[in-house]
């Protein structure tokens, strides 16, 4: 049975399901309803197949490498290589795509009659297909084809809501950044081709010793930038907070939960597998990038009042956390400490999975709220918990998971990341040790700030009184959306409770790397009790914590409600208002909530205040008529990084323009010079 599931044929059938889904939804585009249902039906079936396929591969350990068909081009071969790492990422994409497609059935309804649903289904299926190709291709050129399918399909979904000019602008920013990234990836692949003579990953890996050290370092930097753009590391992140809000919410969930992880996937593939052995400074660079991404990501998230931009910045933060784990894995592997490298890699992989789950859940919740409120501005929400109770509950679970509160899944991957950084402090010496101390500090502050940010988000979306009239008309989402959210919320919980079992599977995946194979015994004792790190340095059990908490809760509720205080009366009254009439304007806003943190970090965030007063009499200036205060946060990356680069390129282009005068005689001269130069160079 397992052989059938893990055969090449079944994988190709799997891919063709998404292809069929794309074509079918394009054919059915005349009718919104059927197009929606059929496109998502094929995506659901395909995702289920992907789940089955990846789980079968991980459990059986049968990796799969095959070539499907011959291409007419000599360097391109449609070759697939599905090892345990690919299978793990296929598991993530299938899991998230499954619930995204279920959620989409209800969510896409509000686009009926407005945009063409068939094209959305077309790009949606192709997007998933592209990610599958990226994860499984073992030929550089074939990989780039998949990469382009993924990028272009997601671009079209970002600009799907094209009536809003902002979205189109965001789409183009995304496209430009994506191609900058792709350019760097192409450079990396071409350099590898020049020295190894092949685009095949397996061949490159076996002859990586031919690479001079300098070229290898350039490949590293190009790969870090190229895949870092997709992963959204700071300062290459600027497309992310623009593009994620623009896309439909289920697509945002896929982009944020899975697509940006393909950048992480390729980094792991390149740096920990293909290019091994690596110098230690690669890991140091990755760790530093992780420190900056996680701290700055959460700080920018705090300044946002656009719910989807807030979540997008949290994606940057979580990519940073993943890179903390991955960076320390690289450092440990180049210091020849494979068991610690494995521990860090498991932390990074576990956080990748967890982030995919809770971030999709949060984007679903945001999508449901936006669907009802027709705005992304959190200042116009408030009190939605009364109108959308289930959505609120699921969003609460997502918030608790992302802020790493036990017993949800986010805690356990952050715990592992913390522990691997602790091991770095305990085992390493001098300067690298200082870096690990900084990383622990960054992770600790990130956790605290994320908690503040999600108190702000949950509070201003769901709690207190409505801040706009729109809230009162909000209704609970359709069932398919609730199922999507509920399932992911349950998964957040289950991956927390069964974290030890999950990590033992992840350990198996980590061991499939050549550099990590020589580890004698298990590093994580993952019995039924809970997670434990070797030498009993640390251990934790989610189940025991949950049970003690539930036990305490039950005892408290029984004692307080049934024994001490049975005849208590509860009166419903008004909130204390100091004798005035309470209005929604007296509640704290999300901007106000985060303002003190923004002021504390004003050196980094550069907040701006614009104060305009309109006086009724401009002479006397005693009686102001209206007064506006505009609070903002400066975009330092645009003004100090991208703007100078753009000015430089424009200036350079203007210089180059001078040789293009439009005069034919001069062009003939150019041809002559070119001919002479080539003649002399041949001679």
């Amino acid at each position, binding site marked *: 049975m397992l052989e059938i599931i893990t055969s090449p044929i079944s994988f190709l059938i799997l891919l063709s399901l998404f292809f069929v889904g794309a074509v079918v939804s394009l054919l059915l585009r005349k009718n919104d309803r059927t197009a929606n249902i059929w496109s998502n039906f094929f995506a659901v079936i395909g995702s289920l197949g992907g789940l089955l396929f990846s789980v079968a591969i991980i459990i059986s350990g049968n990796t799969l490498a095959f070539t499907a068909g011959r291409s007419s081009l000599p360097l391109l071969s449609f070759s697939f290589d599905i090892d345990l790492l690919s299978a793990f990422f296929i598991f993530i994409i299938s899991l998230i795509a499954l619930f995204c497609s279920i959620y989409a059935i209800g969510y896409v309804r509000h686009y009926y009659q407005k945009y063409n649903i068939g094209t959305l289904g077309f790009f949606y299926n192709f997007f998933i297909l592209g990610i599958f190709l990226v994860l499984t291709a073992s030929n550089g050129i074939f990989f780039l084809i998949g990469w382009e399918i993924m990028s272009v399909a997601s671009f079209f979904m970002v600009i799907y809501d094209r009536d809003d000019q902002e979205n189109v602008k965001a789409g183009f920013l995304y496209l430009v950044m994506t191609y900058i990234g792709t350019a760097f990836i192409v450079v990396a692949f071409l350099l590898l081709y020049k020295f190894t003579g092949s685009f095949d990953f397996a061949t490159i890996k076996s002859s990586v010793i031919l690479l001079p050290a300098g070229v290898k370092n350039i490949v590293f930097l190009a790969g870090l930038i190229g895949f870092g753009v997709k992963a959204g590391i700071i300062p290459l992140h600027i497309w992310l907070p623009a593009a994620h809000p623009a896309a439909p919410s289920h697509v945002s969930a896929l982009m944020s939960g899975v697509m940006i992880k393909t950048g992480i996937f390729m980094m792991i593939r390149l740096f920990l597998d293909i290019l091994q052995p690596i110098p230690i400074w690669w890991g140091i660079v990755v760790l530093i990038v992780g420190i900056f991404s996680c701290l700055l990501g959460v700080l920018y998230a705090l300044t946002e009042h656009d719910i989807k931009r807030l979540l997008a910045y949290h994606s940057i933060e979580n990519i940073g956390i993943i890179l903390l784990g991955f960076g320390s894995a690289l450092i440990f592997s180049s210091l020849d400490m494979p068991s610690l490298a494995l521990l860090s890699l498991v932390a990074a992989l576990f956080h990748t999975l967890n982030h995919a789950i809770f971030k999709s859940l949060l984007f679903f919740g945001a999508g449901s709220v936006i669907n009802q409120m027709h705005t992304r501005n959190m200042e116009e929400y408030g009190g939605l918990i009364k109108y959308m109770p289930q959505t609120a509950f699921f969003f609460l679970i997502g918030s608790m998971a992302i802020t790493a509160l036990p017993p949800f899944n986010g805690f356990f991957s952050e715990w592992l990341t913390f522990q691997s950084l602790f091991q770095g*402090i305990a085992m390493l010496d001098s300067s690298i040790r200082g870096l690990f101390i900084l990383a622990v500090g960054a992770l600790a502050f990130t956790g605290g700030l994320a908690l503040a940010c999600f*108190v702000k988000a949950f509070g201003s979306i769901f709690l207190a009184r409505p801040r706009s009239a729109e809230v009162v008309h909000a209704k609970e989402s359709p069932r398919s959306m609730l199922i999507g959210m509920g399932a992911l919320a349950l998964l957040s919980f289950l991956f927390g409770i069964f974290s030890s079992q999950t990590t033992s599977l992840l350990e198996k995946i980590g061991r499939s790397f050549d550099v990590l194979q020589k580890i004698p015994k298990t590093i994580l004792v993952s019995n039924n009790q809970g997670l434990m790190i070797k030498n009993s340095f640390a251990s934790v059990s989610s189940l025991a914590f949950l049970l003690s908490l539930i036990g305490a809760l039950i005892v408290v509720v029984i004692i307080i409600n049934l024994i001490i205080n049975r005849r208590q009366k*509860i009166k419903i009254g008004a*909130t204390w208002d100091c004798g005035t009439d*309470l209005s929604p304007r007296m509640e704290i806003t999300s901007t106000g909530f985060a303002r*003190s943190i923004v002021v504390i970090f004003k050196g980094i965030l550069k907040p701006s205040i614009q104060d305009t007063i309109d006086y009724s009499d401009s002479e006397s200036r005693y009686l102001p008529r209206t007064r506006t205060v505009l609070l903002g946060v400066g975009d330092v990356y645009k003004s100090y990084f991208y703007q100078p680069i753009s000015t430089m390129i424009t200036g350079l282009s203007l210089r180059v323009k001078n040789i293009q005068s439009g005069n034919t005689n001069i062009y003939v001269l150019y041809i002559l010079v070119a001919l002479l130069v080539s003649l002399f160079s041949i001679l």
Partner: protein
Amino acid sequence: MTIIIWAIQIILTPLASPLCVGVINKIKARLQNRKGASIFQPYRDLWKLLHKDEIISRDASWIFRVAPFIVFSITLAIGASVPLFTSFLTNTLTGDMLLIVYALAIGTFFLALGGLDTGSAFGGFGSSREMTLSALAEGGFIFSLLTVALINGTTNIFAIANADIFLHGQYLFPILLAFGGFVVVLLAETSRFPYDNPATHLELTMIHEAMILEYSGKKLALMEWAAFNKLFIFLALGVNLFFPIGLAHTAGVITISTGIIIFMIKIILGALFIALLESSMAKFRFFRLPDLLLISFILNAIAIGLIR
């Protein structure tokens, strides 16, 4: 025997924490030349509140109603998971320092949500200030625990409390530094001077009291009691992880009872310290507090750098 010890361990925190607050209030009153209420007054207050009727805002949702139960239960669960008077109990399931830190964060999370839920201006600002401080305190908190964890080679706090770190004299200085950092965090997390004034309802100064302003009756009792427990847990962490002296190392009626007595003396010394601090200094301006928390973080970073 172990069951009895565990039972004492579980109920000690909620039973003794009001006493600790009563002692602090008594000492403060004495220093202000007042006679002061009895040290058992917090128990009477809780008892009184538990029997009162409640009034709940019509804007409040279920979050407001369940928050006190969650906040209080969390402190019970943590109180049972930290070393109090014994060190020979092994708790490899919930005795991890990061679990303690993040479980305390659950309490903060629901406390802040409860403050936001009624839509009052006080609650909102209280939550905002509380989250700001606790976000900044997190770094110092984890680092101070990490210092003792690295010295002992484990992040399990029972194992840390069991070790005799004073045998190695070279660690004395890092431990003192880390303890200094921990005290700063303790004051911030338990809403004490110079961060917050636990005795006032003045809108400019209050943080914790602002969040629980809308609570009444038994929910207020639970919130207050949870705050007592939190103070007690922090004091216990401080005295047992940084100065692990006098804990019962073996099971036995005499060792256990001396362990409890020594532990209570240590807690009361801690209470004395807080009372003296609160009587001798003024509350800081809000935007001065981040500097203080940053100092705690840096002290701890130095302490970690000094180990080995």
